[in-house]
Each structure stands twice: as C-alpha cells, then as structure tokens.
C-alpha cells in the first residue's frame, strides 16, 4: 500500500524544494509518496475553540477524502499540516456529537467520516518504518563535519499528546542528522517558537525571535539549521534579511528542510532550483564541506 501524501498550501510554492527532495528521497528509500487527490487547505492552524466546529471542517474534509481514497496513512511534510490535521481528527473523534454534526454538515461527500486514516509526519515514517539503520546503509555522501542544529519549533512537539518524540527533550531530528553522517547539535532554542504567523502583523517580533534562535544555534556550534515547517523556514531564513539590517553584528546561517540534506547524503543530485528558494545561500557551506 502506498503512503498517501498531503502537500498543503506552501509545499507547491515557497517550499517546493521540500516537496521535491522528500519525493525523491522516499522513492529512493523504496516507500514512494503518492499525492492524494482533491486535497484542500488543511486549515493551517488548529482552532482551539470548543464551540465552533466549522473551523475543523477543512481538516476533516481532507481526512474524509483520504479515507475514501483508501489511504490508511496520510503523510505530511509540513509540521503545521501534521498538527492541524491530527488535532482536528482527535477533537472530532473524541466526541460522538461532534462527529455526527460534522458528518451532517458534509452531506454532499460520498461517505461518512470515520477517522480511519492516520495522520503521520514524514519523520516518524523515516524513524519507525524505514528505520535510521536502513537509511544509514544507503548513505553514500555522509555529511561529514557538518554541524547541524535541528529546529523543531512548536508543532512537532506540542501539544504533548501528538508530539512525534519526547516533548521536552526530542532527539529524532538529531538522530537523523547523525544517521546521515553529520553532527546533530542540541541547542537551547530548538523548541522555541519562531513567532509563526506574527510575521505578518508583528514583523519586529519575528525578527527578534530569529535573531535569538539563530544566535542560540551559533553559540552551540551549529553551521546550519534544519526544519520541517515552511513557516519556520520563512521566519528563520527569509527574515534573516531584516535581522541583518537590524542587528549589525548578526551573522547569517543557512536553513534547510531536513529532506534536502537527506537527498545530498543519499547521493541524489542537488537541484540548482532549490537554491533560489533559499534566502541565505547554502551553496558555499555545502561546497566547503565537499557535499556538492
């Protein structure tokens, strides 16, 4: 059975390199991702109001369709999609009344929502299904000498009920980096919010967050960051422009999606188009380490 794949809004645009690299990596690992049909926006942020089911509909509709298309598991790359879809599912399934109402509302859909499709983040597939040992066997170009900070942000570890690893002390991404032959560096701000959607209304706040997070990583010895959230990636990478303008002593740091580095380590070709989607040019660092 192929793994269903839910892209979400940004994977087709600003985070195209995340999607491309992930698809290629999974193909190579023998677990190709199959994009589900007819998907819509996941809702981006889970609504935490208890009394407004309308706000859960986007998520549930996606899950219903995935269910109908026969996927037992729906994989997301984006942390936010993971979080929103999974929480919406738990919230609706936890209460029969909610389930009934949501189904009544979606009367035009072919079948009723039952909640049989699991929402899984790609990192969990890599660790639990494919296993890091297996990935290690396939590494052809180890990320030797590359010190990488894994930035988890919020949505992979909070709320704790759906954390993909220990919610206070996760190691899954560092383990992945080690698997790829690099050095996963634990840095203090790796679970701290980047400011998220405040980037639209409170740019200053996100700029300061970026400043603190990147500095924290640098102080711990990181040369680059990896993430799995396009919003984090935007704040941590693109916002380094404003950060550099505001803090003159600030020195920049490349930010990758974890799948880009996987692609390199597994011997796939570094796609020049990916570079265009980065704000801080990662090529010099990759060249310096002899990776491209």
């Amino acid at each position, binding site marked *: 059975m192929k793994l269903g794949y839910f892209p979400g809004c940004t994977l087709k645009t600003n985070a195209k390199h995340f999607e491309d690299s992930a698809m290629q990596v999974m193909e190579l690992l023998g677990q190709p991702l199959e994009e589900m049909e007819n998907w819509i926006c996941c809702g981006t942020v889970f609504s935490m109001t208890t009394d407004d089911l309308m706000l859960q509909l986007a998520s549930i509709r996606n899950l219903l369709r995935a269910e109908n298309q026969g996927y037992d598991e729906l994989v997301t790359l984006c942390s936010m999609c993971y979080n929103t879809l999974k929480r919406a599912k738990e919230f609706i399934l936890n209460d029969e009344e909610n389930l009934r109402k949501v189904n009544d509302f979606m009367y035009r859909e072919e079948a009723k929502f039952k909640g049989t499709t699991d929402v899984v983040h790609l990192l969990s597939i890599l660790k639990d299904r494919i296993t890091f040992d297996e990935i290690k066997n396939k590494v052809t170009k180890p990320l030797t000498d590359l010190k990488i900070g894994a930035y988890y942000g919020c949505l992979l570890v909070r709320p704790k009920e759906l954390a993909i690893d*220990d919610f*206070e*002390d996760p190691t899954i991404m560092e383990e992945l980096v080690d698997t790829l032959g690099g050095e996963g560096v*634990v840095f*203090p701000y790796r679970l701290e919010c980047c400011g998220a959607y405040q980037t639209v209304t409170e740019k200053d706040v996100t700029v300061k967050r970026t400043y603190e997070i990147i500095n*924290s990583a640098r*102080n711990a010895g990181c040369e680059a960051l990896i993430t799995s959230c396009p919003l984090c990636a935007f704040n941590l990478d693109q916002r380094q422009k404003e950060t550099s303008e505001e803090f003159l002593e600030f020195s920049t740091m490349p930010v990758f999606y974890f799948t880009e580095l996987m692609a390199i380590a597994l011997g796939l070709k570094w796609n020049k188009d990916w570079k265009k989607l980065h704000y801080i040019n990662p090529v010099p660092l990759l060249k310096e380490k002899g990776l491209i």
Partner: protein
Amino acid sequence: MKKIGVFICHCGINIKDTVDVERLTIELENYPGVAYIENYMFMCSDPGQNHIQDAIRENKLDGVVVAACSPTLHESTFQAVLKESGLNEYQMEIANIREQCSWVHTDIEQATHKAKLIIKTAIEKLKLNESLYPVSAPVTKKALVIGGGISGIQAALDIADAGFEVIMVEKKPSIGGHMIQLSETFPTLDCSQCILTPKMVAINKHKNIKLYVNSEVESIDGYIGNFNVKIKQKALYVDPHKCNLCDDCTEVCPVLVPNEQEEGLSWRKAIYIPFPQAIPATYTLDLENCLGLEPIACGKCREKCTAEAINYDAADMIIEEEVGAVIIATGFDLYPVENIPEYGYGKYPDVITSLQFERILSATGPTGGEIYRPSDGKVPKEIVFVQCSGSRDPEHHLSYCSKICCMYTLKHAKLYKHKVHNGQPYIFYIDIRAGGKLYEEFVQQAVSEEGILYIRGKVAKIYKEGDKMIVVGMDTLSGKKIEIKADLVVLAMGIVPSEGSHDLVKTLKINTDDKGFLSEAHPKLRPVESLQAGFYLAGTSQGPRDIPDSVSQASGAAAKALILLSSDKIYHSPIIASVDEDLCSGCAICVGTCPYGARELNEVSKVVEVNEILCEGCGACISACPSGAAQQKNLTDDQIDNMIQIIASGK
C-alpha cells in the same frame, strides 16, 4: 425475651431537625422487646449517660439500643456505660440515625420513617446478641525499628531508654540517613553531623539496642504484640570486630564508583567506609562493584589487610527475631531530577540538586566546605536556586508541597553568602512556606540583611551559554520576564517516599496513600499509627517533614509503641468469625479467603479452626462458606436475616 431500652439522641439539632424524635419515641414504645424508651438532647453527655444507667437499673434492662451517631465515634462510650451498669458491653447496639439518616436527608417524613427502620433493625439484632469477652494474648516486649535515619534513631533511643529491647534494621552500611549528609540545619544553623553523631554513637553503645546494617526485613508474620520477623543481612565480607579502620584496603582496590554518600560528586572504591563517622565503624565491601570475590579475579584487598578482617566466603544471613511492635522510619528520596529535562540536569554539570549542594557546603564534603562549582572548580559569583522543582505540579510531577525545600533553600542561600561574601544568590519561588518556630524570622532576616533576592515565579528553562547557565524565569510581582546568567544552579528538589519504603510496603502489605507515603490511622487524631495494628510510623516515610517534625513524630511513635510494650496483654475485639463444628464439612474454601491467615484446617478433626487473635472480623470467610458453618459473632445469618426483613417490609 430480652428487656431492651431504646435511647434516641437529638445530637443538638443534627438529628432532631430532620428526624421527628418525639414521634419516633411514641411509635416505638410498643415495639416487641422495648421495655423502656426516651429521647434526649445529647446522649453522649454525662447526664445522657446517667439517663441510660438509671434506666438500666430501674427497668432491669438486658440490653440497650442507642440511636445516635456513627459507632466509630461513641460505640466505646456507650459500651462503657453498660459495663459500669453490670451488663456485658456487647448487649449494646448503635442505630446510626445521623450519618446514615439525618445528615443525608431533608424530608422530615421520610427521614423519620427511615430512622424508625434503622432503630428496629438494631433492636432485632440486639435480641440475638451473645455476651462476648475480649480476646487476649501476651505481648513480646521488644520493638523493631526499620530505617536508621534521624526518625528511626530517635524512636529507637526513646524505646531503649524506657527499658525495652530494640532491633534496628538499616538497609545501608551505616545509619544516619539523609541527615548525616546535611551541612548545617535551619533555622538555627547548627552543624548537622555535630548534633546527629552523638545519637548514632548512642545507638551503637546502647545495651538495649541490636543493630543490623546492610539488612532488610524479609517478612513479618504474626500479629500485634507477637510478630515474627525475618531479617536478611547481606554478607559481611569485612568483619566489623576485626577491621581497625587502617584504610589500607581502599588504596589497593582498583575499582572506582560514584560515591553515593557524596551524591556522585566524588568517587569511592569498591571497598570503602561510607563516611568517617559511620556507625558501625567498619569498612564495607560492595559486591556489586567488586571485581570478583576470589584471588584470581582480584583479591587485592584481602591480601593487604593485616587485621585479616576480610573474608570472601561470608554469606548472606537470615536472622529471626520476635517483637511486639514495629516502627517504620524508611525515609525519603529526592524526586528523580531526570524527570525535568527542561532544567538540564545531567546535561550541564553546573545544574545540581539540593542534596549535592549540601555536600558542597559540608565541611566533610568533596570540596571541604568551600563552594566550587563542579564543571571547572570556580567559585560561583551568581547562584540561582529553583524552588518547587518537581513539587506542586500535579500535571507533570508531584501534586503536593514537599514542605522542606523553601527552608532548606533559604539556608543554602545564606550559607553560600556566608562563604562567598560578594556573591549574589537568587531564589525563584512561588510561595514561601515558613510556618515553623523561628522560620519566618529566618526568612525576613535573609531578605532584609543578607542580600538574598527572591524572585516570584517558576523557572521555565535552563541552558548553557559559554560558561554560564542561563536561567529563564518570571517575576510575577513586577510582570517582568527574568533572565539570569548564573554560574551555578541548584534545584530544590521535592521529596518522595524512599525506594526502600516502596519495597517494604510491598513485603508488609502496609497501607500507603496515593503518593506512596505510609498512611496514618487518622490524619488528625492518630497520626503516628498505621491502620495495621502494631505498626507505627515515624518521619518522612509518612510525609514530607523537616528534622524537628521528624523527631517529634518519632518520639510520638515510640510513645505509642511503649503503651503496647508496657502492657502484659493485648486485647482484641471478640466480633470475629467462628465455626460451627457440626456444620463444617472441612472443605477449607474459607482458609484461602482469609486475608489475615487466621483460619486453618485441623487435619485430625477435619474441621476449620479460627485463630482468634489473627481474625480481624472482616467476614470474608463467612460469605465464602458453602455450608453456613462460618458465622460472625453477633452478626449471624439469623441476625442479618431479621434485619433485612425489617428493611424489606418497609414497616
């Protein structure tokens, strides 16, 4: 037929306002068996008791029903009244018309009716009551004290000084518990070891005390006043009588392990003395870490020991003792600090626990009492203390307040300040709990005169930057988020029942609360007794407390145990199970159901017998017996039948 007196209590307004006592009196007047009836404001008062006595005398009553509050409160009061009037106290029944009636109902009609039924059932039961006499057994005049911390030590000394023998069992190689690890003690700042070691020596020297270290209780059988104890003592590879403390063995031992007495801040050998003032004063061989008990594996220490104190062939021993009372004083452990990963313990050497800091402060500790931080041995110039580490956090850790950490943290800050004059201590706290004698003064003085800065808020995270520990907290009083670059962070860990306590609870099947602390028989009125008769509780095994409270409680437990030890006999309620030999088929189904091991099949007569002292009257065997041979005294099937009939008839 028995002539029965019925006495209905108003309990002030507690009963009277919901139950129509006047009407009850009239309605029950002619009930079969009732020879006398009255109601009165407070039956338990002196005049109330006199009413009962007078009525018994004047009406030649054979038995009495008191309709009042729960028997847990005044059963013994009214039993005494019967006894004084020359009646057997088991010819008295309580009809509980307060807790089971007036307090739980509002409708007067219905409540009055229910009260009437309750009283009638009591009358019916009383009609078939036998006169019973308490069961008695002799008392072994010796106590067992489990745990050799300050609580166990105090209890043992009190009992021994009163002239009774004490067996003390301590798991570790020396007594002393946590108190021996402490530097100075709040609020008076006297040196912990200076005040404890005399007591430890006293334990060793006391003619009435027998001490077993490296030992644990394997089992306790028997019953109050007559316990059979099996103690397992780990093999004594070093003979305490021969060892002359020369220290030659440690020099040759090649093994290094973290020193638990120093909370892992230094190392010790596999053969070692726990600390200089250890009692008993002898070296100990730690089998778990020793390379192997044979000359081929290592054998260096035995070779070196000129006193020939080391014997690799020693074996574990089981020692049996008989005692009358048991005091449990198995103490506490710190809450596992690994459970709070956001504070970085284990990741950063300069985040330490409060007990580690005690060792750093202690003159006998790894730094000789000078304050150096573990990572690089520098004197910390800014030090942060984090209170409530693990405590008061029902969502993730402990729901309760650990009670001692507010005070010991303040002590830490003060002692730090006394050693590092230009240093700055900060204390993150949520509330300061300083409700002991001289405690509040201790706090006030520190804040105004010693330059200790309290910051009100819980710390969110601690991480390292350069050689500083960054502590991120909050001052909720000013509404400001706080960041401190500290050189050393001390976590004021909460406390939990010790591991040894958990183990013991499993072997003894003693009651604990949901946190694992030993349960007292009554939270207010019987705080040092266990619900299991003959067991008494002392110190932190029963709940978080400091030394003054531990010592008071230990003396309290000793006093309770002494009451038992100084009686020649113990008495036991006769409301227990019996066996009708004619009906018993010898199937022995009941034997397995008894939780107290009180039933046994007599192989000769093929009839089950009851050990009257062991039987607690729980009734398990009675419901299990298929032949109706097992009966509870004064709660026979016939009595229960009659009571049910009253209730079922609704009249």
